[in-house]
């Protein structure tokens, strides 16, 4: 079994499947007598990724496996294939999604405490799009529903896992209080000047 054979099979499989394929599934494609190890499959994937450098497509690892995708730089041209524009996400929706992604599991009340506005409709829409899901109930008064992101969310945004999210600035074990307790500038003397 030659290296190029393994690489070709994997490439063809990723193109034909239309969904991300994990290494285990790629390994299973081969005949028993010619089955490469997981390590060999990974090596072939790396070789493919290197081959695609400078091409119109790229190899991407997402939460549910590897997929071959069109390069982002070509989004403008390629999207003309489908005259319908992809749905734009409102800022409200993105804010809510960000809170759930970084703070999961989180309740609606906790989301609204940060955003300062009601968010139930937006949560509803995120649920409809399968970007988030209900993962249980918080052991608190009223047993509120806890929300978390789905694997679909990771796949949609091309993330391997949640650690792959952009770093949240000001991350502090003390949470949001990290920025301000007590305020260095806000002495009573200065405060009076503000009024």
């Amino acid at each position, binding site marked *: 079994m030659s290296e190029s054979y393994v690489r070709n099979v994997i490439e063809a499989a990723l193109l034909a499947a*239309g969904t991300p394929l994990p290494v285990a599934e790629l390994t299973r494609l081969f005949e028993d007598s010619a089955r490469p190890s997981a390590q060999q499959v990974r090596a072939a994937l790396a070789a493919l990724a290197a081959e695609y450098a400078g091409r119109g497509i790229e190899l991407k690892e997402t939460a549910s496996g590897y997929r071959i995708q069109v390069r982002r730089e070509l989004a403008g041209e390629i999207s003309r294939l489908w005259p319908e524009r992809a749905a734009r996400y409102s800022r409200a929706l*993105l804010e809510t999604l*960000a809170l759930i992604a*970084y703070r999961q599991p989180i309740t609606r009340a906790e989301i609204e405490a940060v*955003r300062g506005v009601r968010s139930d409709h937006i949560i509803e829409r995120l649920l409809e799009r399968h970007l988030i899901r209900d993962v249980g109930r918080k052991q608190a008064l009223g047993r509120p529903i806890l929300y978390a992101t789905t694997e679909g969310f990771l796949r949609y945004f091309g993330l391997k896992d949640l650690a792959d999210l*952009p770093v949240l600035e000001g991350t502090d074990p003390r949470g949001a209080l990290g920025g301000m307790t007590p305020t260095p500038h806000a002495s009573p003397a*200065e405060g009076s000047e*503000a009024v």
Partner: protein
Amino acid sequence: MKHKPDLKIVVSNTPPQPATPQAPPQQVEMPFAVVNGEPISQLPRDLYIPPQALEVFLEAFEGPLDLLLYLIRRQNLNILDIPLAEITRQYIQYIELMQDLQLELAGEYLVMAATLAELKSRMLLPRPRLEAQADEDPRAELVRRLQEYERFKRAAAGIDALPRLERDVWPTSAQLKERQLLGTLPQIALQEMLLAFKDVVVRAHMFAHHHIQRERLSVGERMSEILATLGESAGFVPFQQLFRPEEGRMGVTITFAAILELMREGLIDIVQAQAYAPLHVRATNPGRLLRVVSDQTQAAAAPAGEPAPDTRLPARADEDLA
């Protein structure tokens, strides 16, 4: 709050300052527009601003925190040292403007206006030294919320910037012509095999030949025989003993049917000492034995020690009713 908002706050970015309507335009101020070569630094008095334009502007805010953050950032104010009086004034102007435009204002905006007013008053009051939180600035909680909100506003932008499937990237696909159907051989469970065998047996039954013969046994006859047997023993007879296995399935079934029929007629009792114990059968009234025999078999056997049929029948009917 009765003071009507000044529209200029919204449409111009100049910091609030005393209006100078009489100031000569060609001087100090930067012209904000040039019309027909003439610099214009003042809004025409009859300038009409369509309310929809403001609506669009105001609806761009995601809530009171967003609006407040905008007011602070627009003026490059230090978020940790917000000039409360000024910000509160500007905030309330926006709120009133929205109300003037009959925008449906979310309650949260009004709550924030009240919070700001409350903070402002607390800043004005001298704070008692003994207060537990004497050190904390009254604005701290608000600032904390603003910072927290701003963090997630940025995080939202970060998520928005991620390449998104079918917006920024597309999964590729290739056609596979002549797809081979590679059927893997399924595992067969024993149960499935038994089911298959059952089907075969059922089908085999359909081909079976039947030779139908008139049954020589009759339920009525068997009833008589059973009653006779019970009469002879004049006590309990084991249930099993009433059957004659050598007669085969049909005979056994007839016997069983006869027993059921006798039970229905109330002519026999079936008893069981305890659960799962052997069943025993006895005649309820040996005296009535002959009567039934005569009824069923139409035999002209003389009723011995029994009343005449005419008087007997109503009595039976009463019994049945009871």
